[in-house]
């Protein structure tokens, strides 16, 4: 990491010089030497700060396009999720870079679900507000043949698409369904939402929702569906003790044997 090595080395050099000057005036020093030392210390201090903050800025710049995603499908502990939310909120990353990853992450526990919903509705409201403002501006334009009219119409289309994809994405349905589950709603009340989720994103998978549906269909003795949701949930979180312990005996494959084996190794 050449550039950072160089900057850190430079900062270290400045700092060590700074430390040396901080050792204080020797006995022979006069008052004017003290003043000169203090001035020098301040310059060194500022220099070190400048180099270190530049180093941070360059690192941030590099990471703008290359930051690895948060591995949100690997974290289910609510305390860790809360920590991650706080860490990201206070980090130097702009919210848009981590926005969806963080929202997905917060749906991994019922205790942090509200973060997702609040943020989700905030973004939705902001988009709706922007759309309305843009519509008003377009209405006030008298000439439809101008570039301004065309630009604003295109901008409106983009915002409308963004809103539609937000409202039709799996995150929207999953967070709403989980909220209803956490409030103790009946299955009939969430059935329609599940149907819409499957229509919009047939390949969806979510640990909490799959676990809930596995238990529901298992009670209903729907082997096919309970097996489907069990395999999705356990694959997402193979450390879930409850799932590992209660793996049902499916006839078609040895999934239950494999879950028992994992249980024996882990617990």
């Amino acid at each position: 990491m050449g550039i950072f090595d160089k900057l850190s080395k430079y900062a270290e050099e400045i700092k060590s010089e700074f430390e040396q000057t901080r050792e204080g005036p020797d006995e022979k020093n006069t008052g004017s030497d003290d003043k000169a030392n203090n001035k020098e210390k301040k310059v060194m201090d500022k220099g070190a700060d400048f180099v270190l903050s530049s180093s941070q800025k360059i690192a941030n710049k590099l990471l703008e396009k290359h930051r690895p995603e948060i591995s949100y499908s690997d974290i289910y502990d609510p305390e860790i999720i809360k920590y991650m939310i706080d860490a990201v909120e206070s980090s130097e990353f702009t919210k848009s870079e981590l926005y969806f990853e963080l929202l997905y992450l917060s749906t991994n526990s019922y205790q942090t679900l509200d973060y997702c919903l609040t943020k989700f509705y905030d973004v939705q409201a902001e988009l709706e507000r922007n759309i309305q403002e843009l519509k008003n501006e377009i209405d006030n334009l008298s000439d439809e043949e101008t570039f301004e009219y065309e630009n604003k119409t295109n901008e409106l289309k983009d915002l409308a698409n963004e809103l539609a994809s937000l409202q039709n994405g799996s995150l929207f349905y999953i967070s709403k369904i989980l909220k209803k589950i956490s409030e103790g709603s009946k299955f009939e009340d969430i059935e329609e939402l599940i149907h819409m989720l499957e229509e919009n994103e047939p390949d969806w998978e979510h640990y909490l929702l799959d676990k809930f549906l596995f238990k529901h269909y298992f009670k209903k003795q729907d082997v096919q569906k309970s097996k489907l949701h069990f395999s999705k949930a356990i694959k997402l979180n193979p450390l879930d003790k409850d799932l590992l312990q209660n793996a049902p005996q499916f006839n078609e494959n040895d999934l239950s044997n494999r879950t028992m084996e994992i249980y024996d190794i882990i617990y």
Partner: protein
Amino acid sequence: MEPENIINLCKDSNEDYYLRTLKSKYVAENSFIDFYKKFEEEASYPDLFGKCVEVNSSQFKDLYNVISEISKLLGIESPRCFIKDSYSYTIESEGLNYPWLELSAKAYNDLSKKEISFLIAKELYHIANNHLYHEIMSEKMFDLINSLPNIPGINIISKFGGDIFFEHKEFQYRQTAFQWFRSACLSADNFALSYIKDLKSSIDAILLTVLNERKMVDQIDLKRYINQIANIETCLNPMATLEKINEVLPYGPYRMLNLLRFYLSENYYKLENNL
């Protein structure tokens, strides 16, 4: 089952995408590969024959048989394998004309048959899936980017902007190459697990290569170890993130989680009944 199907069933879901991104950055591909094949590959031979012991049908026959069996499954020619002196549990694959394996004597002495089979299967998967080719190309690209500032004409850039331009390019390339290789390693782990069909031995084999000490591996609480992922993920500051990007191999806890997930997958089930 056809070798191609085996390879595809084991593939990490991101591997093909990362490889496409990596390949899009290659330049002078044929020249680099030709140079490696014609000149560099052979440079390893004297040390291999002078400092290592070759596995064959009359010495280390157990290893020889395992290598032959897995190579047949993967549809590749059985590569030569050399045992070398080393204080760690390592296995490496090298070469493009005639790929070969290098296994440490410590691994051969201390690991169980299943654990060694896991390591061999993992390495043979790298050979069968052409991972060595892209590893070599990546190294050549790094060399090229690092030598650019000294080439007359191009060095004019460094006169105006220092080395930042070249270091930025190297960072971008390294990020893409390492991301692909981490994914390729997970695919190789998946194949090795499918081949030995023993989760515990697979876990131990990986942990031994990561930690290099059997006593430590025996002490590990796997759940806590995997939960270290959360600690890694919470390191969000830019410097910590750069450190994470700079890792060639996936961190141990991610490899464990990947192994458990693959073990529970439909693909593992298909392979288990066909290998």
